[in-house]
């Protein structure tokens, strides 16, 4: 590796973020709709519809209404989806179909700055969606404040984690259709088994251990704790897990994208 392609990230990655933000400003009215309505749909269907059957459930030994249990998980899933889909499908379209990265590479931007800007943008989308959802869900009185405000910086951290692994898949996927694979094998199982719709404690011991590997499990744990206002030292493990996950997949994403883009 020569100097041209060794790691080089200056604050110029911000320019890539700005490009995506400029596009977002043109379509923000549409981008606002999913995080506004999706939680409403879910709360209606699962919280009220299913919650009537479930009643109160036991979470860490304390009784919690099903809707209060579910709402934080919806936020966590949205953090995952926003960053993951931005840095898979949307980034792939920019890279492969629109040649946006090729054009950027003829300017004083480095590949590392382009990829960093993309991942930070994915995390930003997670934060925007989270802020909208927080407002909606708070109207139902389901978020405990001030601890609930911690969910915003957490959305950024979680966004980087899921954006980085999404970008890693973008670096290795041969075609856009192949994203079905990580979605089927990674995103969907997490969506179902990360303590989202039912406490992970209800799973058999081996499945509980497996769920701990999923980054979403830790994100759900954190969002739920912040929403319910039950902050314990134990949560630091989950924060650590997410940070380590970022530290592994962020460099891996850079390596794979460099390999893909440098011809």
């Amino acid at each position: 590796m020569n100097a041209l392609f060794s790691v080089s990230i200056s604050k110029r990655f911000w320019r890539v973020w700005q490009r995506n933000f400029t596009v977002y400003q043109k379509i923000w009215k549409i981008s606002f709709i999913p995080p506004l309505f999706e939680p409403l749909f879910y709360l209606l269907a699962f919280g009220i519809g299913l919650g009537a059957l479930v009643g109160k459930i036991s979470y860490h030994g304390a009784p919690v209404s099903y809707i209060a249990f579910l709402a934080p998980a919806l936020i966590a899933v949205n953090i995952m989806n926003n960053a993951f889909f931005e840095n898979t499908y949307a980034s792939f379209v920019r890279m492969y179909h629109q040649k946006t990265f090729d054009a950027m590479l003829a300017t004083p931007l480095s590949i590392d700055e382009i990829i960093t800007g993309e991942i930070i943008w994915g995390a930003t989308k997670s934060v925007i969606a989270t802020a909208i959802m927080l407002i909606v869900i708070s109207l139902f009185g389901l978020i405990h404040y001030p601890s609930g405000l911690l969910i915003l910086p957490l959305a950024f951290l979680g966004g980087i984690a899921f954006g980085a692994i999404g970008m890693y898949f973008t670096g290795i996927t041969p075609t856009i259709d192949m994203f079905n694979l990580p979605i089927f094998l990674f995103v969907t199982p997490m969506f179902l088994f990360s303590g989202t719709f039912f406490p992970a404690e209800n799973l058999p011991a081996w499945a509980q251990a497996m769920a701990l590997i999923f980054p979403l499990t830790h994100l759900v744990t954190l969002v739920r704790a912040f929403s319910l206002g039950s902050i314990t030292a134990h949560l630091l493990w989950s924060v650590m897990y997410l940070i380590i996950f970022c530290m592994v997949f962020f460099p891996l994403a850079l390596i794979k994208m460099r390999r893909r883009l440098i011809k």
Partner: protein
Amino acid sequence: MTQYIIEAEGLTKKFGDLAAVDGINFHVNAGECFGILGPNGAGKTTTVRMAYGFSPKTAGTLKVFGLDIEKDWRSIKSRIGVCQQENSLDPDLSVEQNLLVFARYFNIPPGRAREKAQQLLQFISLDNRRGAKVTELSGGMMRRMILARSLINDPELLILDEPTTGLDPQARHQLWQRLEELKAGGLTILLTTHYMDEASRLCDRLVIMHQGKILVEGKPADLIREHVGHNVIEVDDPAEKLRAFVKSQSLECEDLGHRLIIYGQGRDDLFHEIGDRFCTGGCILRMATLEDVFLKLTGRELKE
């Protein structure tokens, strides 16, 4: 000592075992338009991609503005403008936004960028389409937009990779006119093309590449004179007697079976002699062009 804008020595690029660019030497002087000609797959695009820091070289040295592209890539890239072969305009943005967003990549302040964008849109006659989506533009307009975008940072060197491929004659002439204006303004241009008329019209000096190597280098007119002469005689369905005559006179020619191409080599009387003695019709005399040089040197068979 005059400094070259681009200086390449033993420049090599390998993809696996294949040498796409195979140890080439060339330099580009300040203020000139330098052309890289060659059939598809000759290594033209690979060469310019190395020059603008898109592809790392395998071996050799490559300096731009006297700086090492590997070490000083960021300052080099901030001083050049690049028109890539593929359309890389941003379809998510309007015509004007394409220029403004690109200006940010060069850290150009917003006020200055708006001024420059306005100027460039006038230059390419698109100032009445500033709010349009780029996907609404015609092929020629898009090419002009790519040119405008590459000028946003007031580059000292403009690199154009097949700028008029796929354009209709009107659009090509439009673009050529803009490039001639830029050249007259003193801009240094590096151009790849496989259109000989484009090279003849724009290039002060050029090289012809084939299979990763440079075959010849020179001014277009000199290359024509050296390799083909002033005139070319083309004869349809040549008679055997003519073939024998050409052989006996040891004239340089190419025999395509149904057509014989005879390079004049400065003999003005040759056409009349051949016309009178061997032809009943289908015999023409024409000026030699760069295309004759190109085909003579790179062969007539398909390259892909």
